[in-house]
């Protein structure tokens, strides 16, 4: 029987698990003279109580592996290499190759890049992938891969995976990657972890430990996929550093064909390229504002600060949700990951999901009135104070110069 199991021999009825639970999924019950923890119907198996238990009395038990096939027959790390409209491999693919190279070496297996592209694609994609760490590039050049159709790509990857049995497949958490990866996962009936910020190997089992923010970013959850293969995850662009290309590296190239029966079922009638509006993702200087600025009325002041610094204006998710700024300004897990030289964070409390997006910033200066705000943990400099007053004064200084 699967479920949350409390070992009554070990349980001391301390109630730490009850306090740790965010969903009312565990309670204390009296039985005779003793109190025991017991799961309720509201349990979502998040594991918070397992961690909180001081006597290791709680575990999430699962029935034996439901997976078919021999896990040991799955080998190698694969990285899906998405290309942009001009046909060039996206930076996130190189970032993933960099991280996966380390993991593959530790695991003693090969690192393979998957490249699907149209017949007219630039010629140097394969070499670039090898220089970034791939031992092999599986490349398919086909007209049907010249536009990004998640279903066609998913079918292609699935047929390769069934045949070659990779142990891990990683995808960039781009719009396309987030659509493609679930399509592969459901067809291969395997697990998929979205938006990971940490990828590690469990030294004991060799399992890929995929860590991502949960519960609005107040908790981090480490997720594994023990009995199904391949283990799959998407990772936001900007989380890992791209390796310096190694022009000495050599690698194998396998050209494969696409199943003749595969056709796209979605017709693209028009393509509107994104406006060339400056993007927060590429900005060298950023002013990021959060709910602490109080009201929409404070935005012009913040814009002024950004203008004076030649910076772009970014914001946290609640501001986008409140309609103060458009989504393209959003910085964090579900917005853009940024890597500016200077980031001035104003009235941002610093939920983990936001912090996940600013890890690449070189210098962070944070202004917030709450001395306990988590943003200060990610900042080099902090100002504890009324962010409007401080910014007003700062704007005056900058204007005077």
């Amino acid at each position, binding site marked *: 029987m699967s479920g949350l199991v409390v070992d009554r021999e070990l349980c001391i009825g301390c109630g730490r698990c009850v306090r740790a639970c965010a969903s009312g999924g565990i309670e204390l019950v009296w039985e005779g003279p003793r109190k025991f923890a017991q799961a309720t119907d509201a349990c979502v198996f998040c594991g918070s109580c397992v961690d909180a238990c001081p006597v290791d009395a709680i575990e999430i038990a699962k029935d034996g592996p439901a997976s078919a096939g021999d896990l040991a027959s799955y080998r190698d790390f694969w990285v899906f290499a998405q290309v942009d409209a001009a046909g060039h491999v996206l930076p996130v693919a190189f970032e993933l190759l960099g991280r996966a190279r380390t993991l593959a070496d530790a695991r003693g297996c090969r690192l393979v890049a998957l490249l699907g592209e149209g017949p007219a694609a630039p010629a140097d994609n394969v070499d670039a992938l090898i220089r970034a760490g791939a031992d092999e590039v599986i490349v398919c050049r086909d007209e049907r891969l010249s536009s990004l159709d*998640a279903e066609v790509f998913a079918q292609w990857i699935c047929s390769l995976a069934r045949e070659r049995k990779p142990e891990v497949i990683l995808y960039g958490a781009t719009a396309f990657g987030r659509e493609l990866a679930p*399509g592969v996962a459901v067809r291969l*009936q395997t697990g998929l972890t*979205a938006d990971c910020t940490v990828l590690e190997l469990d030294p004991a089992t060799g399992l890929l430990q995929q860590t991502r923010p949960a519960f609005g970013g107040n908790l981090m959850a480490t997720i594994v*996929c023990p009995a199904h293969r391949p283990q799959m995850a998407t990772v936001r662009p900007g989380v890992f550093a791209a390796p310096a290309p190694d022009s000495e590296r050599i690698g194998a190239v396998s050209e494969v064909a696409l199943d003749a029966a595969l056709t796209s079922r*979605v017709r693209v*009638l028009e393509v*509107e390229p994104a406006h060339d509006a400056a993007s927060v993702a590429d900005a060298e200087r950023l002013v990021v504002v959060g709910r602490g600025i109080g009201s929409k009325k404070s935005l012009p002041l913040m814009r002024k600060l950004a203008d004076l610094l030649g910076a772009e204006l970014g914001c946290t998710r609640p501001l986008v949700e409140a309609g103060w700024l458009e989504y393209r300004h959003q910085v964090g897990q579900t917005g853009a990951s940024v890597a500016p*030289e*200077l980031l001035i964070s104003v009235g941002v409390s610093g939920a983990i999901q936001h912090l996940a997006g600013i890890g690449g910033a070189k210098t962070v200066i944070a202004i917030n009135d709450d001395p306990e705000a988590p943003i200060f943990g990610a900042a080099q400099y902090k100002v504890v104070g009324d962010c409007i007053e401080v910014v007003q004064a700062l704007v005056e200084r900058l204007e005077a110069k």
Partner: protein
Amino acid sequence: MSVHIVVCVKAVPSTTEVKMDPKTNTIVRDGRASVVNPFDATALELALRIKDEAAGKPVRVTVLSMGIPDTARLLRDCIARGADAGLLLSDRAFAGADTLATTYALTCGIDALDEPVDLVVCGKMAVDGDTAQIGPELGGALDIPCIADVQELLGVEDGVLRARRATDGGRELVEVALPAVITVAKDAAQLRMPSIAGVLAAQDAEVEVRTAAEVGADTARTGLSGSPTQVVRSFVPERTHEATAIEGTVAQQADRLAELIEEVLR
């Protein structure tokens, strides 16, 4: 030609702002009632607009959810706003499902409906999970195409749906023959409020509640048992380092900040 639309909705906490108790470093429960995932609310509105614009042609909207029995309350609210029927999959066997097991359960629910489904509308993601996986997985499971991240639904005509969706490079105008799955961005529409008549009528509407067995689900593929992924550890992230505090009066702080900025940008 009639069109049957299924809108998948998830009950989520009314706020994703989870407070931490600084003393115990554990989550403070706020005990508020759950709400329909805001993305799914948009999905319902788009489905209702298809119904509004069908001009006499029968369009039926069914809301489908997997959740605890209390979720029926939310499905009834969807009916008050204009949905025709609700199906809630509720069973201990569904608990602890990851996206794959959730997709399987929803697929069983869709198969159990009386009428075949022409269009499945999902929110792009749930605010409490942010995975954005259910829609594309449903497309794969049902073997029908999926259009993710729809920003604007242009309509359904003669069994063909047109929409504008966001892509990595911008936006695309696409069309697809039904049956299909779409996932919708939250800003694509704002869910209408129910009317007095709608609220009163929804009280008498039936929200079907079915167990795993009743929808023919194999419990080895549902809930915790059917989930390939499992959480091995949840932890409160630690602060990495201490920032240098800039102290003094506001004026002094501003002076120091201006200097610092100059240093950094030099």
